[in-house]
């Protein structure tokens, strides 16, 4: 093992790696720094001047206050000047994103787990055909569904409701969810399930009491997957929520900010960071499960 990690040219290897890591992190770091800088300096000097000329740094939390607030607020800058600004109400969008994400993660996983159990441990006519259908749908681009669903939603008056977007994310997430859950559940030892059935447990009982608790690792990695996908989604939200202000999610608000405040970098950066904070936290703390899910094979339509 030691030989395998032989550090030939370790200077070159580490140097190149460091350079790539810098290229990958500096853009995000710049965004973070900018979000804390005073509105007046952001548009005049680069964010790196915080380090080259620390005396003129002028760091502040005003930008966050402004993008989060739903009302008009008064900000006082370091020189004592008062300024009245209109908030961008990202708080509401944040809550909307949560309202969209949590059920849009739990519902497909629950439905997929049921289906995966059915495919793995029950026998019924059409089993193989239906599962082939699931595999075929894995890579179908969701664009193909947008127009027909939009027409259905129009008729059912669902457009702009939370239910509409939960169902959409459920539909688009199901093929991968069923596939991954099937891979996991079908590998569980047959003896556990059979002995439970012999003991008089119904399939329904086996599923709730045995399979779901045993599948926690698979569920965890799938949940992170689906959460990142839903939280970061723009297209599905644009199509099925549209411009309904009460329901708009973070990505939509952020897109709107880019359009209306394209040069107000202090606000854009703060807003972008708010949209990134939760997925980054989830990602860093649960990375292990995420990697496991990735390695279990992942292609999404």
């Amino acid at each position: 093992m030691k030989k395998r990690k032989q550090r030939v040219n370790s200077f070159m290897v580490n140097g190149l790696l460091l350079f790539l890591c810098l290229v990958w992190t500096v853009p995000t770091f710049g965004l973070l720094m900018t979000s804390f800088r005073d509105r007046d300096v952001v548009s005049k000097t680069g964010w790196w001047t915080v380090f080259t000329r620390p005396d003129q740094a002028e760091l502040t939390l005003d930008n966050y206050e402004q993008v989060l607030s739903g009302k008009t607020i008064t900000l006082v800058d370091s020189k004592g000047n008062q300024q009245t600004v209109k908030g961008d109400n990202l708080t509401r969008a944040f809550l909307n994103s949560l309202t969209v994400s949590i059920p849009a993660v739990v519902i497909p996983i629950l439905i997929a787990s049921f289906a995966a159990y059915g495919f793995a441990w029950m026998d019924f006519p059409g089993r193989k055909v239906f599962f082939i259908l699931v595999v075929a749908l894995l890579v179908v681009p969701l664009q193909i569904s947008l127009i027909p669903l939009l027409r259905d939603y129009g008729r059912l008056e669902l457009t702009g409701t939370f239910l509409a977007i939960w169902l959409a994310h459920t539909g688009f997430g199901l093929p991968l969810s069923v596939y991954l859950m099937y891979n996991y559940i079908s590998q569980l030892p047959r003896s556990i399930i059979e002995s439970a059935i012999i003991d008089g447990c119904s399939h329904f009982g086996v599923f709730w009491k045995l399979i779901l608790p045993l599948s926690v690792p698979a569920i965890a990695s799938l949940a992170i997957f689906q959460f990142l996908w839903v939280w970061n989604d723009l297209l599905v939200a644009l199509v099925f929520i549209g411009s309904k202000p009460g329901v708009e999610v973070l990505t939509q608000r952020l897109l709107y900010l880019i359009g209306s405040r394209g040069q107000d970098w202090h606000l854009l950066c703060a807003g972008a960071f708010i949209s990134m904070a939760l997925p980054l936290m989830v990602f860093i703390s649960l990375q292990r499960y995420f990697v496991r899910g990735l390695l279990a094979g992942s292609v999404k339509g």
Partner: protein
Amino acid sequence: MTQERTEDRLLQKALVGVGRLFFTLFVPVTAFFIFFKIFIFLRDGNAPQLVMTLIAIVWGVGGVAALYFLGYWLISKLSGKWNKSLLPYLFVGPALVILAWYLFIPTLRSLYLSFFNDTSMEFVGLANFLYCFTDEDMLISYRNNLIWLIVGTSFASGFGLLIAILADRSKFEKISKILIFLPMAISFVGAGVIWRFVYEYKPAGEDQIGLLNAIYTAFGGTPQAWLMIQPWNTVFLVFIMVWMWTGYAMVIYSAAIKGVPVSLIEAGRVDGAGEIRIIAAITIPYIKGTIIAVSTTILIITLKIFDIVYTMTGGLFDTDVVASMQYKQMFAQHDFGMGSAIAVLLFIAIIPVMYLNLRQFGQQEGFK
């Protein structure tokens, strides 16, 4: 006397039966009624946001679980034979219904709609497709999508492999992998803000606040509006995707590299091969299957790319791709026929991958 009794008993039985039936119907009907009432409340209600959020979450998650219990309860009322043959469909049925409604049937419906005009009232034959292959903006979007496919896939996959190999030989493996992996958690819109800021342009003479122009001018260049230089602007957009998906490729390659048998590498060393030779002649051939799988996944993502283009340029300066053209036809032009036709093209482009997936699945033999 005895006859009366039997009649009584029959009446009793009938009453119980009716009562049971009524109860069996009453429960689901009430349940649906409650679901519906809460739905209306959520749609039109005016409670504080946080309250609505909580109710919506409980309603959505609890509702689905309740539906399964309700279904099970109804099925368990049936006789043994019916129960046995219906139970599997309680498990797989909901998933199949949703898949049919959201993906399978829409594919056929989109195909159907693509032969109709913008309002889907009039049959136009292949006119939409004819437009798709002659319109200049559409042709530009194909060119751009091709740039996305080639540049995006090769660079994301290539950088991923390079970093995986480097990290495997470095003592900073863990931290460097986390840093490269991190952008995967960011939305395309968030990444759009990050990179718009990197590409930000200020006229010469002013302080550049965009990182790229700051570096470029520091080396003596004149500031450039990167996103307006055609056709290179598409490449600048592609690099945002590369930045986000390199981490994915790296993680998978990294795991694959660790699976290369040490004995093979040792044998190479004994034969006097240098590190680069070992990588080229042993590691890469060994993980060839993984490289194909990862590249296919990234290929599919670039094929459907929409968010980055829509966030960064909105398709201006000839940066449109097929998916953003589809969105434009759908919402800016309200042309459902054309929108469907473009979606069908995307679908056709993905069929080879679908075929490969199915073939691989057929060979697996895992499904008995």
